[in-house]
């Protein structure tokens, strides 16, 4: 069709697709799925870190963590708004989350057991998220690309804060250093899995590449992340829990060990350490908040507000 041709021409010229533009249904659906999944991840991601705000070990760290988790809420807002431009309401997206139809990033199904996890999440998880997200700033869909530009700026700030927590722990008492190493041990592999399946078993990637939604392959991003992170671990004096990790002079990249994809599938499938907890906690918050949202609507109606 003519519309299809115009759409493809725009993609070819790296022009942004905007909300009012025609787009293929599958493109729209893929975007809603991806953006809402990203939004849900921000919201669910507030829980593992929120878990430590009340116990943060200094007031400064408490304020920084609170601000960070709040930023994540803000990212959720931008992203829901970006997805809404595609014609799906926030309520619909939340329904999909609560009923299990929509996913969120599996990384948030791991528990935060010590304060060092606040460091490890910032350093590793946010670090991996940035690797994933920077290319999205060039995504073909305008509202998503613009949301990602804002988000990436804040994420890199969060990543530095996370690294700073790790640095303090590694310069601290032996107990603090041990805490940092333990956190790295627990978060390393789940983080490496954040980039998704290997390229040869990632069926949707090719279409997303063609549409200009995805720009770089899973494996390429993963390699980039590992290459960037290993020297940081060395700087911290921590050892990465992968005996196969080794600089490969020839490739100019780090080689690394086999990923346990069965764990990945297990957590993705709902059997991770916190899947049920995370979802039921969100659902409870939403249900408990029903009367609040209803009151706001009733009041707005009575008083002719929006």
């Amino acid at each position: 069709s003519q519309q299809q041709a115009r759409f493809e021409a725009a993609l070819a010229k790296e022009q942004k697709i905007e909300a009012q533009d025609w787009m293929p249904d599958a493109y729209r659906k893929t975007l809603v799925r991806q953006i809402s999944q990203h939004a849900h991840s921000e919201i669910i991601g507030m829980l593992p870190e929120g878990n430590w705000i009340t116990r943060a070990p200094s007031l400064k760290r408490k304020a920084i963590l609170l601000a960070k988790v709040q930023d994540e809420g803000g990212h959720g807002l931008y992203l829901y708004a970006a997805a809404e431009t595609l014609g799906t309401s926030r309520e619909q997206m939340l329904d999909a989350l609560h009923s299990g139809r929509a996913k969120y990033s599996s990384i948030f199904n791991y528990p935060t057991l010590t304060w060092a996890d606040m460091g490890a999440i910032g350093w590793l998880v946010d670090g991996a998220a940035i690797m994933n997200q920077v290319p999205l700033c060039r995504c073909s869909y305008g509202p998503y690309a613009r949301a990602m530009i804002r988000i990436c700026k804040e994420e890199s700030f969060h990543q530095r804060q996370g690294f700073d927590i790790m640095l303090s722990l590694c310069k601290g008492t032996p107990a603090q250093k041990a805490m940092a190493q333990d956190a790295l041990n627990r978060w390393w592999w789940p983080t490496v899995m954040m980039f998704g399946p290997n390229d040869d078993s990632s069926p949707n990637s090719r279409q997303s590449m063609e549409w200009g939604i995805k720009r770089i392959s899973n494996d390429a991003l993963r390699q980039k992340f590992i290459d960037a992170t290993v020297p940081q671990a060395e700087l911290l004096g921590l050892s990465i829990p992968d005996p196969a990790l080794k600089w490969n002079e020839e490739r100019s990249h780090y080689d690394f060990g086999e990923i346990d994809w069965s764990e990945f599938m297990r957590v993705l499938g709902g059997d991770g350490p916190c899947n049920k907890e995370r979802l039921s906690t969100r659902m409870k918050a939403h249900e408990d908040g029903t009367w609040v949202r209803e009151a706001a609507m009733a009041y707005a109606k009575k008083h002719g507000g929006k």
Partner: protein
Amino acid sequence: MTENPHIDYLLRLGDSTLILGQRLSEWCGHGPVLEEDIALGNIALDLIGQSRLLLSHAGSLMQPAQTEDQLAYFREQFGFRNFTMLELPNSGLEKGQQQRDYAFTICRNFLFSAYMVLLWQALAASLDRQLAAIAEKAVKEARYHLRHSSDWMLRFGDGTEESHRRAQQALNALLPYTHEFFSADAVEQQMADAGIAIAGASLRAAWEEQVRGTLQDATLEWPPQWADSQFRSSGKSGRHSEHFGFLLAEMQSLARAHPEAIW
């Protein structure tokens, strides 16, 4: 804990903001709607920011000087000087640190921020120049907190039957604790005489007018027995409720497990 009314007075402010900030941060990730999650986080951040300035200032007057973290993490409960109301669980009077009732939470923010707007306004003229500077910053934040909570009081009171009932219930449970804002007390009197502070009692009429006005607009009832109630909480002189020990145990647990650590 301290014999110095100036320090004591600063601790009241620094602890009240800290403890309410702590309670509000328990909402993180559990708000009734995302925008509110963010708003409560904002308010908690403001309060913790205020607390850091106030505790640092108080600590600098101590012999030997104390840091904000020494004061926040290594004092026993009787050393804290926050209003009792602010340490109550988010759910109301029954035990349950991590239960959350939004009506109770908002109503508490409303009653407290209405008071703090007046107090910070007055303290902006304090002869303690550092306190005056903190007050000037804090009054703007408190105005936002008051606007946020007032808006919700209106929505609750004049929203649905359920929201009205919940808001009225929260109000009835919380109002007795507001007497502590105004109760006469030697520390405040001395600070007022020295031009550093003013007695809470002098804010009562303005506070009541403000609060009653909003409640009226919200079609909520001011419980008539309030004025006669003899109930007096006493957190500001260090006697707290049973809830406080649990709050401190949680807040201080990590810092105290590693007393030598720098974070």
